[in-house]
């Protein structure tokens, strides 16, 4: 078993955990964390492929994509957090009350 294979399996697990978390977690912050975990899975998948396709160095394209992706994901997560705090401040709600 090669290194990248371990992580590529991990990536699928993380993605599914994150996805489940987004749906099942109740607290805003946990939902946001879940999206980051989901993203973590996706990025791990990219980087694992980069390692698999390494020549003298690892494939730089996935690395660059992941760096871009992390920054984008963090920007959205920060926005979500700001919204969540704002909602808490206005209503005292910490989760979607009419969530199914």
């Amino acid at each position, binding site marked *: 078993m090669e290194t990248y294979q371990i992580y590529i399996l991990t990536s699928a697990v993380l993605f599914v955990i994150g996805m489940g978390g987004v749906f099942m977690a109740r607290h805003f912050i946990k939902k946001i964390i879940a999206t980051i975990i989901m993203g973590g899975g*996706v990025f791990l*998948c990219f980087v694992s492929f980069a390692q698999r396709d390494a020549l003298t160095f690892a494939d730089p394209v996935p690395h660059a994509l992941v760096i871009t*992706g992390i920054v984008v994901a963090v920007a959205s997560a920060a926005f979500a957090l700001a919204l969540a705090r704002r909602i808490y401040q206005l209503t005292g709600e910490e989760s979607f009350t009419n969530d199914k």
Partner: protein
Amino acid sequence: MTDLPTSPFPALLVGLPILVATLSLFFRPRGKAVVGLMGCLLTGGLGLIALVEVMQQGTVIHILGGWDPPLGILLRMDSLAAVFIGMTAVVGVFISLYAWWFFRAREATNGGFPLFWPLWLFLWAGLNGLFLSNDLFNLFVTIEVIGMSAVALAVLSGKTAAQIAGLRYLLAAITGSMAYLFGVALIYGSTGTLDLGLLRQVLEPGATTTFALLVITLGLMIKMAGFPFHFWLPPAHSSALAPVSALLSALVVKGAFYILLRLWMEVFGVSITFSAGQLIGLAGAIAVIWGSWQAFMQTSLKLIVAHSSVAQLGYLLMIFPLLILAPGVAAGSADWLSPAWTAGVYQVMAHAFAKASFFLSAGIIIMALGHDHKGSLRDLASRMPMTVMAIGIAGVSLIGLPPSGGFFAKWMLLKGIFLSGQWWWAPVVLAGSFLTAGYVFMLLRLAFATAREKEPFRPVPKGLEVCALLLALGSFLIVLPAEYLIQFLESSEAFGSGIQSIMEGGTYGND
């Protein structure tokens, strides 16, 4: 690929709005609005010029940084992209003009929401970028730009309801993009390229491709509020400020649909089966019925309109089953492909115009009466004839009565349905129209009724009413150049193509 003519327009269409958005940040609120409006007019004009350019030159490209794919990114503007960009330009300009008057009128009480302008310009750049993009990962970045600016616009009103709806929207959007990106990762891993044109040639069927298609479709369905992922749309669209609601329903959800359509038809043909198309069609059919019914049950104008979006987007999904050929059907004999594509494009345009007009009219009513309970429409026909007219005309287009754009779309859809022999979709189209008529005329009926007691009524700027009315008329006028437009669209590679699953004994593509 590289023998296509190069044009600066694709780069300008993305760069310019962001440049203006950045510039506008330096101005105080009033200046932001002026610069923002100028930027919007500029971007709109640019979109139309680019459309004309494609009409004259055919497909144009812009190789960013001068690096050819697969390493570099290519912007590609074919007729399909050009039509979407042109539509965004026209609808966008009208909404911008409306926003200008709308926020001017609210300047005294709410500070005029100056942030609207840079956010909207970012959104516009994102949309243009999405229509032009020819790279899976770049598409992800553009949908993130669109998603974030859309949510930011949705919460701009500062109302609690808007913020809760906005957070739900944002979480759905992030989940959707992450699911999409997972698919992109797998595709990159299995092919080593992100360029759509190259992928079409190298993608091979298999478990990975199928799974990638699944998560990408899932992600985009969440983004476009396709059933059963429509839960976020009605609260978000109905609680936003009127011009924002118009932008969100008219343009933003169409972005995800556009990618979904392109990826299915241009890239993932190898993995798509007949039953997959049926499944998407089923989701669309349920959305049509469910959304219309929900709209019928609502009591506030904006919620009615928002639920109606769910239904109208359902029609878009219903073209998918027609584009995928049943096993054993010869690609050459499939004469329903062009009608189905036409139905899709026209449904997008008709809905964009009509729904924008509808939301803008709702905004006018809220401004005049202070609320939008549907009962507030009583006796409106005599006090705001132009707005009621706009609602009426837009509503007629939504129902699909002739000779509106909506009618043309439904005509083509039904034609495609009958020609393909998939008659089981026909009742859905008709029932959807009938239900739509139900809620549209429920509103109009009230507008003609005499008010029991006169509500306090504030006059609104005429410009607002004119914008809404012109957009509503637009949903009719788009039918006039139909023949020319279809001819133009057929120059796009995707338009009119169908897929036959390799697994079911076909060959890839219809060529």
